[in-house]
């Protein structure tokens, strides 16, 4: 398996995490701090263009320029290990690295744009960011810290029925770099296991897309929701209470639209949706509102949080400081 870093990391901001589920970023930082991961967030970094790119607004050349600028910032900070909160940032940046390293003509054209823009210092040097060696998803970094995660678990998720949804742009695009399986993806399942809980494993439609489909959610809504409905039905058949995600766009599709689909199809769904970093942070005892950000969710997470029980060895701590009590 490839080398997974735990230092010199740039934690790459995601537009959807920032504006829809900011608790994913604060939870990731919380878990990174607890497991000894050295990272930096650079305010100069911009969005990868992903949503606009896959809505066909951004052409590959413009996306490559934006990517090259963000690569420059990571190199400038001497933090070339770029770690993504979002599956689409992951896919986009790996693609950009491959283009810049393998397509000499395109790289020269990108560098000409930097020259023309008086930003020659940002020109990309072939090989400076490697798609496989330097670009990761948060789940990759956490996979390498399973033991440290296990040591920090305070709350018991083992009584819940849990399933996982692995974002397509993590598992299926640069699949040679994917950890934990492609046709039967399991990296999130393994991270849930590290928290002392188990998942239902394989289920019908486990591998299927969330249904967002970029443009489809907005201009082809029935088609988009039909695909999401397939997956929700499969989860309901298995009585899944918690679906654990790794991508904020999938998270939007399920959490924001689950009630809409329930009403539209006259079919009730009760599954709650958590990003894997939020899940681990809750299991470690992070405050649900000040760290995990459950107040930004559409399907309420409170039911689950209120049912969480402290592991016996942490019982005393819990008596003194009940989870998120001041905010409930």
């Amino acid at each position, binding site marked *: 398996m490839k080398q997974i870093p735990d230092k010199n990391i740039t934690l790459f901001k995601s537009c959807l995490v920032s504006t829809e589920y900011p608790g994913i970023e604060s939870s990731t930082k919380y878990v990174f701090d607890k497991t000894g991961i050295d990272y930096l967030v650079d*305010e*100069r970094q911009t969005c990868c263009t992903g949503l606009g790119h896959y809505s066909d607004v951004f052409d590959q050349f*413009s996306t490559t320029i934006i990517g090259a600028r963000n690569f420059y910032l990571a190199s400038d900070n001497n933090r070339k290990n770029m770690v993504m909160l979002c599956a689409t940032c992951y896919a986009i940046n790996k693609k950009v690295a491959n283009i810049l390293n393998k397509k000499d003509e395109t790289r020269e054209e990108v560098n000409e744009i930097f020259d023309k823009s008086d930003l020659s210092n940002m020109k990309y040097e072939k090989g400076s960011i490697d798609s496989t060696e330097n670009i990761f998803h948060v789940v990759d970094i956490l996979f390498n810290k399973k033991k440290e995660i296990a040591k920090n678990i305070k709350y018991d998720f083992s009584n819940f029925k849990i399933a996982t949804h692995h974002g397509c742009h993590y598992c299926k695009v640069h699949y040679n770099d994917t950890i934990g399986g492609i046709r039967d993806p399991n990296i999130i399942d393994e991270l849930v296991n590290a928290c002392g809980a188990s998942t239902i494993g394989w289920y019908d439609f486990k591998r*299927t897309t969330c249904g967002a489909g970029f443009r489809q959610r907005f201009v*082809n809504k029935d088609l988009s929701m039909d695909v999401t409905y397939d997956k929700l039905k499969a989860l309901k058949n298995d009585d899944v209470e918690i679906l654990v995600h790794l991508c904020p766009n999938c998270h939007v599709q399920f959490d924001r639209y689950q009630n809409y689909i329930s009403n539209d199809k006259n079919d009730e769904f009760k599954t709650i949706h958590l990003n894997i970093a939020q899940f681990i942070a809750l299991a470690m005892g992070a405050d649900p509102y000040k760290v995990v950000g459950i107040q930004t969710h559409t399907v309420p997470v409170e039911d689950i949080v209120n049912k969480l029980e402290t592991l016996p060895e942490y019982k005393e701590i819990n008596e003194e400081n009940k989870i998120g009590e001041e905010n409930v």
Partner: protein
Amino acid sequence: MDLKLNEDPLNLANTILKDIKSSENLGLLRCVQCGMCTSSCPGAMHSNFNPRDMIEKILEGDETVIEEEDIWNCFYCYTCHSICPVGNSACEVNQILRQFAISKGTANKKIQPFLEFGDIFLSMALGGIPSIFFPEMREDIGEDWWEFKMNLDNVRNKLDLGSYIPPQESIDEVNKLLINSGFEERIEAIRNNKKP
């Protein structure tokens, strides 16, 4: 299809293979029409989109595929890409076809609803969901979501997260880069229904 006896039927396929987006060793010419792509495709399951047919037309040099409505039903989920036995990627090829349609000036109406992605990037170097979709989302998702959106800065403060808007210097850099790359011109052409 129109027979083009004096032309190489692989012109279209070769043009796709030379595209900036085309991955190294993309197996387009190795396609054996097995149909794995279509059988695993969410778009094919719920609409008339058929990635196997799309690839067949490309290999026959049938350029009408660029104008087909069905190609806009691909979800860009890469399921086909991840299971193709010969390393083809209907998903990647689809993205290239849509860019061809945009370059020909025949896809402006498809792109216009999403132009705010470009506008926000040029003015604030941000991504995120375009506000043009907010009214419908507010209706579909509910008032709690809308209140959260209106209260985003406070929520972020509570989570000890700083501003998500990059500093002005970064915005200016990105703006300059996207003007010089031709991106601004491209989206203005699409907005004004012209050929980019």
